């Protein structure tokens, strides 16, 4: 134990399963955890929709809510949950000195304006002029900010007064891995004492599906657990709206203010495998080899997306170790892109905190786990690129 160990003292998570750590623990430890699905809205694609959220619980000013599209609102909301959970919400001094690292993609474009342009484009050829004409007259001025990547962090600063520093990392699962890896490294090195870190993904927008489908990544059959989609129509990914924010703190910092931690963040490793030229399973295995994996069975909160190649490689690499007992949580939450790794870490910490494993989310493919987990592994293997994993241990 070191005073600069990184501990998790607050967590705010939202998914189709509900909001907050308790709701998720209840839903995920139920006898037969069941997904919440919307099969109609984006058919033939199934998604895991947001639960009903009373935004004013974490974003009291309506003016602030109006300045954000759903993605930013969702992240700001989850960040508020995490701060509340850490007992920092109303501590002005703690928030003002708190660092912030957000994993972000892009926000939601104005679908109506875009569609109007697409429709008009079919009947005229001067497309560049058409763009100028429509965008100058129909775009809402504030929409730019409401969808801008670093404005999720900006809104967290405005709404929750977190103003120590603010960095936004972009780029799918890898960004989520880097946020936690960087935040933890800064705390261990004494460059930071407490950091709010996380991400959000709001899938209920056609552009969010479009990006996956440009490479045919989405699953088009009816819902199945992530490990069982290989023979189905489509690319295997079922997306979900969700967010995860964690308050990471130096052990000493948490103890001084008398906070009990959920868990300790162990080593985090990341990798850019050359998937075209080397088997991804080897890359994942190499990451596992970098971690001090404990003896015996190890519960593994896998962020597997369902994407065929990456999911199969992860399954293979985990199976090869013989001791890793996987829980593919995306079966139940859907794939949450930038939020995927923070979410995996949150679920891992929750299991360590309760001293209890999650039941199999896919009884056919996931083994039972006996006993109280002392350590849990969290993974996020990018559906397309970049990989990361980390250990969470008892505080």
């Amino acid at each position: 134990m070191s005073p600069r160990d990184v501990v998790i003292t607050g967590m705010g998570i939202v998914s189709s399963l509900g909001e907050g750590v308790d709701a998720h623990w209840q839903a995920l430890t139920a006898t037969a955890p069941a997904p919440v699905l919307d099969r109609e809205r984006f058919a033939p694609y199934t998604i895991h929709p947001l639960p009903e959220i009373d935004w004013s619980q974490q974003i009291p000013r309506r003016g602030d809510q109006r300045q954000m599209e759903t993605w930013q609102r969702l992240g700001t909301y989850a960040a508020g949950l995490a701060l509340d959970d850490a007992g920092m919400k109303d501590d002005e001094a703690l928030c003002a000195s708190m660092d912030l690292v957000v994993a972000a993609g892009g926000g939601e474009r104005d679908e109506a304006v875009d569609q109007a342009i697409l429709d008009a484009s079919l009947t005229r050829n001067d497309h560049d002029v058409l763009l100028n004409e429509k965008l100058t007259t129909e775009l809402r001025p504030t929409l730019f900010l409401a969808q801008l990547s670093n404005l999720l962090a900006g809104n967290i600063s405005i709404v929750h007064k977190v103003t120590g520093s603010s960095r936004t990392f972009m780029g799918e699962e890898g960004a989520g891995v880097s946020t936690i890896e960087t935040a933890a490294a800064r705390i261990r090195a004494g460059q930071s004492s407490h950091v709010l870190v996380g991400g959000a993904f709001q899938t209920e927008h056609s552009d969010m599906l479009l990006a996956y489908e440009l490479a045919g990544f989405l699953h088009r059959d009816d819902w199945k657990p992530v490990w069982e989609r290989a023979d189905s129509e489509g690319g295997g990914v079922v997306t979900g709206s969700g967010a995860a924010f964690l308050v990471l703190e130096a052990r000493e910092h948490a103890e001084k203010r008398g906070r009990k931690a959920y868990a300790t963040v162990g080593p985090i490793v990341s990798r850019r495998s050359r998937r075209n030229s080397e088997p991804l399973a080897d890359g994942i295995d190499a990451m596992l080899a970098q971690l001090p994996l404990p003896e015996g069975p190890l519960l593994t909160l896998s962020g597997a997306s369902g994407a065929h190649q990456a999911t199969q490689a992860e399954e293979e690499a985990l199976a090869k170790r013989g001791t890793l007992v996987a829980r593919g949580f995306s079966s139940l939450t859907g794939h949450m892109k930038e939020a995927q790794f923070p979410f995996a870490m949150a679920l891992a910490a929750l299991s360590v905190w309760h001293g209890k494993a999650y039941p199999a989310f896919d009884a056919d493919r996931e083994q039972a786990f006996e006993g109280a987990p002392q350590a849990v592994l969290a993974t996020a293997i990018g559906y397309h690129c970049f990989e990361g994993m980390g250990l969470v241990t008892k505080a």
Partner: protein
Amino acid sequence: MVAVTGMGVVTSLGQGREDNWKALIGGRSGIHPITRFPTEHLATTIAGTVDFLPSSNDGASALTFELADLAAAEAVAQANVTAGDFAGPLFLAAPPVELDWRHRLSLYAGAREHNGAMSLIEAARTAHALQLFGESQFATIADRLAERYGTRGLPITLSTACASGATAIQLGMEAIRRGECDRALAIGADGSATAEALIRFSLLSALTTQNDVPEKASRPFSKDRSGFVLAEGAGALVLESLESALARGAEILGIMRGCGEKSDDFHRTRSKPDGSPAIAAVRAALSDAGMAEDAIEYINAHGTSTPENDKMEHLSLSTVFGERIRDVPVSSNKSMIGHTLSAAGAVEAVFSLMTMREGVLPPTINYDTPDPAIELDVVPNVMREAQVSSVLSNSFGFGGQNTCLVMAREPV
């Protein structure tokens, strides 16, 4: 201590350190009428776009990559690092990506049905256009750069709006200080001057509409300044622990002494009226550098030429430096290159280091009508020979982002 051993830059003034520097000290502007797309219906018709590259008309993603690549190649060559084996992490400041409109339109044109968004998604699925997929993924540009330069580990793509370039440098400095690596490649690149980007900034009233004489449009700290000029460019720096740089006999181009940051919780685009976050960011950078205010000999201003930024920047500088601010030269490269957005912090760090090395302060051009409320020595209109051994470079961005860097010519 973190040294700089390689630098590369591309702006509308040209490609490479030499061309840029010559133009910069000559007080030449790179701002010109937009030719990349038609300007009908647009209030602003000028920009500092980079129009001379093969991918200048291939969309934001392709151009941002090419800009980053060219700047990185120049920096890595100067640092004399093994080609293709950089062996340190990559931090890339880049604009958020989106599928280019021309691709969106061509997908839709080829769609089987035209029934809204779902038709577009189906067209995307059946088009098998992997290049378009790359354009929609935020990791793509950094992934390609990592492959080309042999950087180590997971590359980080970041955005802190107009402070992004400075943040990339800051992340590199922090990684070296943590002892995670001996060197890091920090790049800021932005090739996103599309019609939509221009319109978005225009709708926020951020851009000048003084189109008539493009080279006179960007006039930081002038009374008649009226907004920034959208621009493109890239800056790249090889950051290296001084120890490692000396051990391999690399030339030390300058020292990254300190970085500081403070976010603003006041408003999405406006700064807190008392300027306290920017003030705190400057002070944090000085403190991180272990330097007192009076040790700063030149300031490379954020100086966007918007009424708000320049006023607030003056307020924060005069608060930190007191009466002495009248005697510290403060110039804005943006008077010539415009606002290169995600690249600005990195481009201007390169220019700051060159300022110290060359013993010449680049001017703030178009300074014809001083703003009486802003009493600064802006190195008006003409470059000035001056030996400076330390520079403060400011970067401020939407979303309350304030990042400052302190650079020095020599290690102490």
